[in-house]
């Protein structure tokens, strides 16, 4: 059995907006293994980006954590990242154990410093390298990452969006972290560049045998890249399973309708989407949060929250009806 690298326990948090609270991550428990690509799927506002920020331990007001743990395995001991202070995370966790690749690379790159100085900063903080040594290592490393050496002297704004994102990925992988969190890393890019970047990310993950958590709304990317998928809806994980299993045998009514609504090239068959709108997370529905839109819903669904229950090997679903054996 593969080793575990991350254990999220009963994690709850969200945003304070005036006197309202947006329950974006609502009591999530999840195990993440070594050497896997875990996809987190869901539509806008389902809490997937918030979950990633909380796993990274980047908690900035109005984001708050109400309860729960994010346990990361470091040298065979479990450390709750949320218990550390930010200074600790910056010095000992970020870049070294966990790296974060956001959608917009400009959030990570400093516009006033050259790319080579971004490398130098990380290498001096974590490896104690001098500038010249760092530059040399960086140019060696860029060759490995198939990036042209010329980017080292460029400022971030001088590079195209695709090239910038490749630089951010190279920085994120520099210290060979055990866990990479990528939040819609290629959403703003063209499909041809997207494909090149994602395949590179996967190749590197396979080489380092670490863990990649890939957040994207694009089910096509999940199908092309991930080993397992967790489906989020309104702050909850409602289904987790192997990627093949999720696509071929989706169980939760939401997952099922979502997958059926996807158009593929070469198909003109009339498809239907989901009725209604995702709920307002300042006042989420009672019981199962999908019940107001669910074709299978009965009384119990509005009264009692369903928990993730094992449906088959490595496939879990949170639905009263499916667990009763009713199928959509």
């Amino acid at each position, binding site marked *: 059995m593969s080793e575990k690298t991350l254990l999220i326990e009963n994690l709850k948090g969200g945003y304070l907006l005036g006197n309202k609270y947006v329950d974006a991550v609502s009591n999530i428990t999840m195990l993440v293994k070594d050497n896997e690509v875990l996809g987190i799927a869901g539509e806008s506002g389902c809490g997937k980006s918030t979950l990633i920020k909380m796993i990274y331990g980047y908690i900035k007001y109005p984001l708050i954590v109400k309860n729960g743990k994010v346990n990361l395995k470091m040298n065979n001991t479990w450390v709750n990242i949320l218990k550390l202070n930010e200074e600790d995370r910056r010095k000992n966790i970020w870049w070294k154990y966990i790296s974060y690749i956001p959608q917009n690379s400009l959030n990570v790159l400093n516009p006033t410093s050259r790319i080579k100085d971004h490398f130098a900063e990380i290498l001096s903080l974590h490896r104690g390298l001098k500038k010249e040594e760092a530059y040399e290592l960086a140019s060696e490393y860029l060759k490995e990452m198939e990036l042209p050496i010329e980017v080292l002297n460029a400022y971030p704004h001088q590079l195209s969006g695709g090239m910038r994102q490749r630089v951010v990925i190279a920085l994120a992988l520099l210290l060979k972290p055990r866990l990479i969190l990528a939040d819609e890393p290629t959403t703003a890019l*063209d*499909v041809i560049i997207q494909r090149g970047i994602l395949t590179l990310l996967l190749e590197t993950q396979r080489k380092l045998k670490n863990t990649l958590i890939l957040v994207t709304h694009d089910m096509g990317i999940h199908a092309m890249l991930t080993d397992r998928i967790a489906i989020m809806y309104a702050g909850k994980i409602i289904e987790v399973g192997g990627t093949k299993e999720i696509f071929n045998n989706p169980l939760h009514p939401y997952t099922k309708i979502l997958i059926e609504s996807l*158009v593929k090239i070469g198909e003109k068959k009339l498809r239907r989407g989901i009725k209604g709108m995702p709920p307002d997370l300042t006042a989420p529905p009672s019981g199962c949060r999908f019940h107001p839109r669910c074709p299978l819903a009965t009384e119990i669904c509005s009264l009692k929250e369903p928990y993730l229950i094992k449906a088959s090997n490595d496939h879990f679903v949170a639905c009263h009806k499916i667990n009763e054996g009713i199928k959509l």
Partner: protein
Amino acid sequence: MKKDNILLKIDNIIKIFKYGVVIGKKFTAVDSISFIMENRPQILTIAGESGSGKTTLARIILGFLQPEIGKVIYRNKDVYKLKGKEKIWYRKEVQAVFQDPFEAFNPMRKIYTYLYETTKNIVGIEEKNDIDEHINQTLEMVGLSLEEIKGKYPHEFSGGQLQRVAIARALLTKPKLIIADEPVSMIDASLRINILNIFKEIEEKFSTSFIYITHDLATAYYISDEIIIMYRGVIVEKGPIEDVMKEPLHPYTTLLLDSIPVPDITYRAKWLKASKLSGLEIKEFLIKGCKYSDRCPYSSDKCIRERPRLIKIDKNREVACWLYS
């Protein structure tokens, strides 16, 4: 083709943008584009990635952006020579739907006032009751009603709902042509299909044609009949969508199709065999020959030197590539 059979004729359009404050540089965003839309209900896709010039072309067709060279002829009239009443006529006949519905509406104004003004000023209905009836009927086409929107501001709608309102607004004038520029790219997948189904329904029921501008070939295939593929300001390929998707002619179209992540794991092995990313991108806009020549696996000297023209391959298909001429 007889003139009356032509709805829209795009005739050798060139649009040049200048950039750089001190040293005046320029690039051709839309480069010698011509095509014809026949006067029958249809959905034509103009597909391309960012920087392909598809949105610029849309704005030119809508009359928002005058090209340096070339003409937009709509039902035998030059769009940039319309005067007075003819301009209102064109507004009525050709409508637009944009990517971000929240940008299309002023957040401080109620949605209803937009629908009211369009009905009154462009459709020309006078009576308040008649206006409301017209608005309600139109909203029903997109699965909404007057009651649901009255008194509400844009932020009270979700993106998907507001986009439906934007479509309804476009439909108020009973247009013959709707230009929809990335109308579903900000909408979640599970709701996206509902909007696309509305387009199909409108085409069938009201004989309205669409120009669907998108980077997403899967949705293009789902709703359209014909496709134009653009790359860096030029048309590289044109034809019936089934033929183009099943048997692409231009090497760029082939790569684009192969690169799309498909929500079907049987495509995975093939998709993961991506070719290496190129080095620093050079200014493809400035290339003299084929704009794709520096990335194309079949590129020859001729491709770099000389621009291939769009030529007919058979009755329906056209391609701009030296491999075919």
